[in-house]
């Protein structure tokens, strides 16, 4: 179809080489297609080369976020503190969720902070492509940098909220940090791997499905209730509601619940007396599985449509 046109163009362009199709001409001079998806290993290497961009972008976003407020960066600490206060007031005091749970504030806050990390990453990831279209249409870089930068940004926030969380947990349980706390970075690493993967998946979905941003709050809220953030899954599902044990097991297997459970085992010694500070095998296996699976699938899934992100 392009045959006659290329001939015309060739003539226009200086009458060179007669009837040669442009695609052949391009090949002869070693020209490549302007938009082409690099092979997966190459893509990962390019991404690694942009690590400074990803880090700077994340930090810059965090800095500019509170630029206009009078208290400035203090909000990084104040936001999790205020959140903690509201959750405790709501679920601890008013709804009285703490009846069967020892150290309920520590239980609730651990769940809430861990869940918030995943929730915020997913919500931010969904917008990472669609709200940066001008950047995407202006500069060349592996697009996965954007959802990655959003995850890093949330990770930086998490570092601060974790500090707040540790202080509050110690104040509640009166237990000093022990050797098991060394596992905390491992859990957070696994959760971050999962978040990166989940962020990449929703980033691709959000780039084409405009309605995802409206829908996500409902999805994450359902997820919040299914993850046992302010109640014990075992307690409510099996003991109170009388549902079979497998329902509870399935709920424990959802990634958010797994990370929350493991973190609670570490921070609260009374959380699960049967296992002490160790997580049940099901929990840690679920944590590792979700981390590896989400990370691999997320990168692959996002990379598959790399060349289409600019279209809007």
């Amino acid at each position, binding site marked *: *179809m*392009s045959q*006659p*046109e*290329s001939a*015309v*163009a*060739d*003539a*226009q*362009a*200086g*009458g*060179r080489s007669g009837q040669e199709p*442009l*695609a052949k*001409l*391009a090949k002869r*001079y*070693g*020209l*490549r*297609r*302007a*938009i*082409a998806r690099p092979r997966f290993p190459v893509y990962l290497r390019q991404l690694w*080369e*942009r690590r*400074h*961009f990803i880090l*700077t*972008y994340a930090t*810059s*976003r965090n*800095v*500019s976020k509170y*630029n*206009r407020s009078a208290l400035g960066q203090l909000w990084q600490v104040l936001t999790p503190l205020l959140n903690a206060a509201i959750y405790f007031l709501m679920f601890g005091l008013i709804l009285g969720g703490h009846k069967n749970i020892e150290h309920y504030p520590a239980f609730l806050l651990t769940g809430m902070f861990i869940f918030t990390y995943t929730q915020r990453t997913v919500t931010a990831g969904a917008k990472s492509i669609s709200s940066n279209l*001008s*950047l*995407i*249409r*202006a*500069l*060349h*870089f592996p697009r996965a940098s954007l959802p990655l930068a959003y995850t890093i940004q949330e990770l930086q926030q998490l570092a601060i909220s974790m500090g707040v969380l540790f202080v509050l947990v110690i104040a509640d349980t009166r237990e000093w940090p022990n050797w098991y706390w060394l596992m905390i970075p491992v859990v957070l690493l696994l959760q971050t791997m999962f978040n990166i993967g989940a962020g990449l998946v929703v980033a691709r979905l959000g780039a084409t499905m*405009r309605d995802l941003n409206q829908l996500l709050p409902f999805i994450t809220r359902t997820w919040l209730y299914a993850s046992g953030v302010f109640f014990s899954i075992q307690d409510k599902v099996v003991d109170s509601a009388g549902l079979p044990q497998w329902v509870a097991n399935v709920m424990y297997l959802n990634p958010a619940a797994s990370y929350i459970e493991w973190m609670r085992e570490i921070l609260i010694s009374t959380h699960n007396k049967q296992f002490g500070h160790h997580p049940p095998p099901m929990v840690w296996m679920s944590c590792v599985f979700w981390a590896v699976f989400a990370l691999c699938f997320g990168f692959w899934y996002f990379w598959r449509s790399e*060349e*289409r992100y*600019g*279209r*809007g």
Partner: protein
Amino acid sequence: MAELTKELSQVKGDKPAVPGEDVAAPGKGNGTPNTGKSAPGTDGQVRPQPETPGKRPLDVPTGTPTVIVDDLHIVYRVYGAASESEKGNAVNALTRILKRQGRPQMKEVHAVKGVTFVAYHGDAIGIVGRNGSGKSTLLRAIAGLLPPHEGAVYTDGQPSLLGVNAALMRELTGERNIVLGCYAMGMTPAEVREKYQDIVDFSGIDEFVQLPMSTYSSGMGARLRFAISSAKTHDVLLIDEALATGDREFRKKSQERIRQIRESAGTVFLVAHDLRVIEETCNRVIWLHKGKIKMDGDPKEVLAAYNKG
């Protein structure tokens, strides 16, 4: 966005009802490639004359192509562009979904309709045309930032686009934007440290570099963006209206830099509404009209024709 809406209103008129037919029959020019909208031979339409090698603009080195655009079609998706008949209320949205009329308020804009040309080492090509004629879209496609709907763009190395939209983060200081922009182009921290002062000096924004970019005048922003993007050596540089807002002194400086890029055997594309800039810097001009090439050749001839019609 405003530009897109404008493009939309232009394209709407001749867009076939069935999306699939879009490409097969773009307007009336079917069969005669690169013809303008009007019927052939009427209203003084200028057909590009096939040039002989001897007639190539003077300062062009021998022909190694750097950019080949082969029958390129670009179709944009635009959201939220509701026409008058479908007011944005919930009932209409529901009927639309029930009738399976595709995505709510999504329009496809056929911005570039079959453009073909070859650019060579050392070329500085000016692109002229009215608002919404597809100039910026064409540049983005050459830069590999917009996927082609049909056809292909072949380039030598990675072209870089330098445009008014290249704003990084308006809330951040110029300093941070320089660092961020350099990283985004793939520089290492050492390179950024090395280039930083150059960029500040070239942009001429001096102490404003410590202020957020949202406080910059449009001219200062454009200068900084040009300074950032041109800090890296490019094989193919695409400049989209970036020089329009700069003052006289800056325009001279940037023209000097474009000349340097051309001398290092690169290719420069320049979109500008200020025809003087194009006449001063370019050795070849492409006139785009409604997404098609209307004329392609020597700046004097094309610009004279463009000024007439």
